[in-house]
């Protein structure tokens, strides 16, 4: 049967090889390539102020972190309310290297890719360790166990004088082949670096889910006893899911440390853990494009609320700081409304649009 390689109205796979392809149709590939070209080319064409560049960088870092959380929560079905602590472990890995050998040591400034990978591995080790209770606990109990890990992490950072009691620890400027990355192109430089990391890790996740290990995660999520009966090792899978999530979070943390050129305790609090959860849920749990929609949506909301509260601040003079009030309010409303009316997240809208255009102008 000759197939239209541009549009497919259904699933016509005849071999496993076909099913393993990254892009099912030419259209998928074209859209993806255009999107990538747009993301890479955008900052070159338009002049973006540092403020918005920072927002973009933040979104990309959040995407890396949420990738891990979505693997854990969406694909493996394990609840974690301590994701910001894992991100913090990545960041504090870089920070502790800075504390030991100095913030402008050549390892920190020149070999930052190595440090980022190290931070990821550190995150994975801690992730596996925190995942150990998952061998015995489920659902709410697991959520509370990770919550307590978050609280212990916060206390530990604030208590250790090695970590400057949670005050900022500075990280030196990174070097590229052309020399030190200057102040003016700092955010642009990290935009490209993080974008590349996001693309690489995104492909990694996509391919992981097609391997035995990825399918193990989904099987354990759906029913761990059935997975056990089919010869998988649910305990190992759970620990390994936590390690994976820790790896992604660790990488995100290291990137955060380099982007802000400093690590402070207040970027890794319980509030941030909840924000990561919200991003994963708003994007859509257990979906790949949800990983990207969630952080974009939540960060965009934050930006809008900030601008709105500047405006509203003129009228609500009795409230001390309107932004501190409106941010949690809007954030909470978005979480609650999404869970009540669109629990499958923004990714579901994308799916609806896609399936509509696939069959257009016909319908059933």
């Amino acid at each position: 049967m000759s197939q239209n390689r541009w549009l497919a109205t259904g699933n016509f796979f005849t071999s496993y090889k076909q099913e393993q392809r990254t892009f099912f149709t030419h259209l998928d590939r074209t859209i993806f390539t255009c999107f990538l070209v747009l993301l890479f080319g955008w900052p070159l064409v338009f002049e973006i102020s540092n403020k918005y560049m920072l927002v973009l960088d933040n979104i990309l870092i959040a995407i890396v972190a949420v990738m891990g959380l979505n693997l854990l929560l969406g694909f493996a079905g394990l609840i974690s309310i301590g994701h910001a602590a894992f991100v913090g472990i990545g960041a504090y890995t870089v920070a502790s290297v800075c504390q030991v050998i100095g913030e402008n040591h050549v390892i920190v400034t020149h070999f930052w890719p190595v440090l980022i990978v190290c931070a990821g591995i550190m995150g994975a080790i801690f992730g596996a360790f925190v995942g150990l209770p998952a061998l015995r606990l489920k659902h709410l109990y697991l959520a509370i166990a990770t919550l307590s890990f978050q609280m212990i992490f916060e206390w530990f950072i604030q208590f250790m004088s090695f970590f400057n009691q949670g005050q900022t620890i500075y990280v030196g400027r990174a070097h590229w082949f052309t020399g030190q990355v200057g102040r003016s192109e700092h955010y642009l430089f990290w935009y490209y670096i993080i974008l590349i990391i996001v693309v690489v890790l995104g492909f990694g996740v996509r391919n992981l889910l097609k391997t035995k290990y990825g399918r193990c995660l989904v099987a354990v999520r759906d029913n761990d006893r059935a997975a056990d009966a089919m010869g998988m090792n649910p305990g190992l899978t759970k620990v390994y899911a936590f390690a994976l999530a820790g790896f992604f979070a660790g990488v995100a943390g290291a990137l955060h440390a380099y982007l802000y050129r400093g690590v402070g305790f207040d970027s890794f609090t319980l509030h941030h853990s909840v924000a990561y959860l919200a991003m994963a849920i708003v994007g859509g749990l257990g979906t790949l494009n949800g990983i990207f929609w969630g952080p974009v949506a939540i960060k965009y909301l934050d930006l809008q609320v900030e601008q709105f509260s500047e405006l509203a601040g003129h009228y609500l003079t009795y409230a001390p700081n309107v932004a501190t009030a409106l941010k949690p309010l809007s954030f909470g409303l978005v979480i609650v409304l999404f869970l009540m009316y669109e629990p499958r997240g923004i990714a579901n809208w994308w799916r609806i649009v896609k399936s509509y255009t696939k069959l257009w102008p016909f319908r059933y």
Partner: protein
Amino acid sequence: MSYFFQIVVSGIVVGSIYALAALGLVLVYKSSRVANFAHGQIIAAGAFITFFLTVRLGVPIFFSFLASMLITFFLAMSVERIFLRRLIGEPIISVIMVTIGLASIFDGLIYLTPFGSENFSFPTFLPTESIVVGGVSISWTQLVGVIITFVLIGCFSWFFKKSTVGISMRAVSDDQFGAMSVGISVPRVFALAWATAGLSAAAAGCIIGNITGLNFETLHAFGIVVFPVVILGGLDSILGAVVAGIIMGLIQQFASGYLDGNFGLNGTGDVMPYIILLIILLFKPHGLFGIHEIERV
């Protein structure tokens, strides 16, 4: 030695407040299997409503105490009706996240009022000098707070053990289908459980506010600290909540009384509950009095 007894007394004071705060969480979990992460915010709301009624409107404190309990009763009931009722049967992560989202919404609403960022304290209506017995001192506010707490806990236990509504609530927590088949309206029981939780939260808020002063950060932090308490006691046991509350209060006070400043440690009182929580979860996840129903891999 009087230092030791002083710590025991303050541990019991703190612990009894924990017990009252944990009671609301247990009530909700017991009947509807929802872990309410917004409990701290309801506690704060109850405290601020009492403060507003007493100080701004000049209502006698006893009546404003009752009025705030009544208001949070309906507040929690409407929260259940509007948000949680739709989520019956949804996956647990949705339910947890909705209560976290609700906590965030309440945060925002309270920050919009002047109560969110300032410190207040209740007007003193009890003698200010402390009672000293054998070198151990306890203030009148603490004493009255503890007494009210135990009276309330007694009332709640009576309500659950003897009254028809309480028995129907226990029936629902035991077996929903069984309860339905004997004519109990399960949604109504859920609403009532939330409402009583709101009521106890307001009481806890008022007592905390009287003892430590009103500060939104400290008040809503109680919503997180009660989790170690309820896990220690067992998530669905009222007796467990009371016993574990007092144990946790004692542990916290002993940790900050004996560990802080001794081995280069400080702030151990804040972290001790979570360390204990992890240990309990690893070895005895159903707590001291909880029902064994944890699945294992």
